[in-house]
């Protein structure tokens, strides 16, 4: 049995050099590295306990729940309208995607038809929100990898989008803009001129950000071939969104489970080939470009009409259940709503992408080095309240 000789044990007569054939080869001890709830690399309050052998990661045990507010319990005591602001706050970077999924679910329960103008507005806001979320991912990822400049450039463009969303909905981040059957109020008059100016300028800005970080030689060296997960394992872990599409699996809720007016637009789904950290980053940059394509088409075909259907004053859907999913910036964001005919849902289960994407981290990282842990965690684009809810 290897006796654990520590420097403190002066009284022990075993000297450090006292080796014989029975003692094991001189190996280094494994130590526990605790990347705890308060850490710049965890993008929020995640805790990862890493067993290290020198620089190499032997095993990872994630701990979550540090922002678990018990939303699903809370929803059971709220009416359908009161739940909408909470859906923003479960994933504050894609508040609009969450509003979209939840409100569409309730509309299906009610069997409510929504005017076409509302559908177009929803697609507009969803794609703007996707670009804003990817920009923040780029900013945070640049900071993780030690590049400060992308943070400033990405936030400059993101402020433009966020102020546009604020102009329309009143909230920069937690918009609370959607209602069952439509919107709180119509788009402001100067929304489209600003949007047109933004689209023309942002095409060039994406290339600038691309060359700034994703095409940067150091970034490529640190991410090419690192943190690879195959298509089968990714699907088995329930990964969706850019993390899944980077592993050569072409699945996008906008095209495969079509909702709203997405079938009217044609846009490509960027798919990476070998599922490494660089592909996950490349897919997000491409998605931003595709979002611009969708925004242009949505603006051209924007119909007239009012911004809200005649939804009933008190929403009391008939007993039944629905699962409505939307392609959020991080993956499939879905709400499984079970109604029992009263004004409050019987059960609301939120299917959030970061929950499944993060559960795959131990398998991706086993055997990589500690610096790769930061790179891989950044590429998963985690939002912690999505995991904890």
């Amino acid at each position, binding site marked *: 049995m290897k006796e654990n000789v520590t420097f403190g044990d002066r009284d022990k007569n075993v000297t450090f050099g006292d080796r014989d054939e029975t003692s094991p080869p001189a190996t280094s001890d494994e130590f526990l590295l605790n990347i705890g709830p308060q850490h710049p690399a965890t993008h929020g309050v995640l805790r990862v306990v890493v067993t290290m052998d020198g620089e190499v990661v032997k095993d990872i045990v994630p701990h979550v729940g540090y922002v678990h507010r018990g939303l699903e*319990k809370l929803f059971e005591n709220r009416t359908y309208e009161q739940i909408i602001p909470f859906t923003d706050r479960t994933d504050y970077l894609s508040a609009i995607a969450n509003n979209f999924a939840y409100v569409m679910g309730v509309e299906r*329960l009610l069997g409510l038809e929504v005017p076409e103008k509302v559908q177009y507005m929803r697609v507009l806001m969803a794609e703007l929100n996707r670009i804003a979320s990817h920009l923040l991912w780029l900013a945070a990822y640049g900071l993780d990898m030690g590049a400060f400049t992308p943070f400033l450039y990405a936030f400059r463009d993101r402020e433009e989008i966020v102020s546009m969303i604020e102009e329309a909905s009143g909230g920069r981040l937690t918009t609370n803009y959607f209602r069952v059957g439509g919107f709180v109020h119509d788009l402001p008059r100067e929304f489209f001129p600003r949007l047109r100016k933004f689209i023309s300028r942002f095409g060039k800005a994406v290339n600038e950000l691309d060359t700034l970080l994703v095409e940067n030689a150091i970034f490529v060296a640190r991410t090419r071939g690192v943190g690879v997960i195959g298509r089968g394992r990714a*699907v088995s872990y329930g990964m969706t969104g850019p993390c899944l599409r980077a592993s050569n699996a072409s699945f996008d809720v906008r095209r*495969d489970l079509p909702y709203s007016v997405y079938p009217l637009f044609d846009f490509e789904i960027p798919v990476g080939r070998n599922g490494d950290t660089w592909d996950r980053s490349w897919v997000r940059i491409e998605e931003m470009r595709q979002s611009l394509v969708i925004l242009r088409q949505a603006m051209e075909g924007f119909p007239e009409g009012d911004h809200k259907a005649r939804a009933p004053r008190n929403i009391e859907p008939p007993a039944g259940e629905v*699962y409505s999913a939307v392609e959020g910036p991080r993956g499939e964001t879905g709400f499984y709503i079970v109604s029992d005919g009263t004004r409050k849902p019987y059960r609301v*289960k939120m299917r959030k992408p970061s929950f499944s994407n993060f*559960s795959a981290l131990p*398998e991706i990282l086993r055997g990589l080095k500690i610096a790769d842990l930061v790179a891989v965690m950044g590429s998963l684009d985690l939002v912690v309240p999505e995991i904890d809810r």
Partner: protein
Amino acid sequence: MRSAEETREALGKRFPAIEVRPVDPAPNVTVHADALRENLAWLRDELAFDFLVFMTALDRPADDAVELVYRLFSHESRASVVVRVRLPRDGARVPTVSDIFRTAEWHERETAEMFGVEFAGHPDPRKLLLPDDLDGHPLRKDFSHPNLVRLPEAP
């Protein structure tokens, strides 16, 4: 490439008691707890339902049962299916499927701590989200806790 219709026929042949509940188009299949693993493996291997979208539970105190809901999706045929298991409310036990679908490992841990369902053979049955000092199963309808203050009803 198997189409959605072929998938639905194959489902019909294997599970006679298929029902479609209001509003959600996906077919619902109720299986017994012991046949859960075998059916899920069959669905994944034969009908290419390779993606477990989510897994959760519904607490039904009225008829003293807790109902597990597994929603599967097939990338190949774009079809969905919902597998349901009805269990007694106390002492609910069901075998784990975390080796068939890796994402089930975390979903089962969360359902276990929230509903009190026990997943036999789960590789890591620790609590996932709840703090260690919180006992009881929060998502059960009859859960009460000193820190849980209910929103007063509108007058």
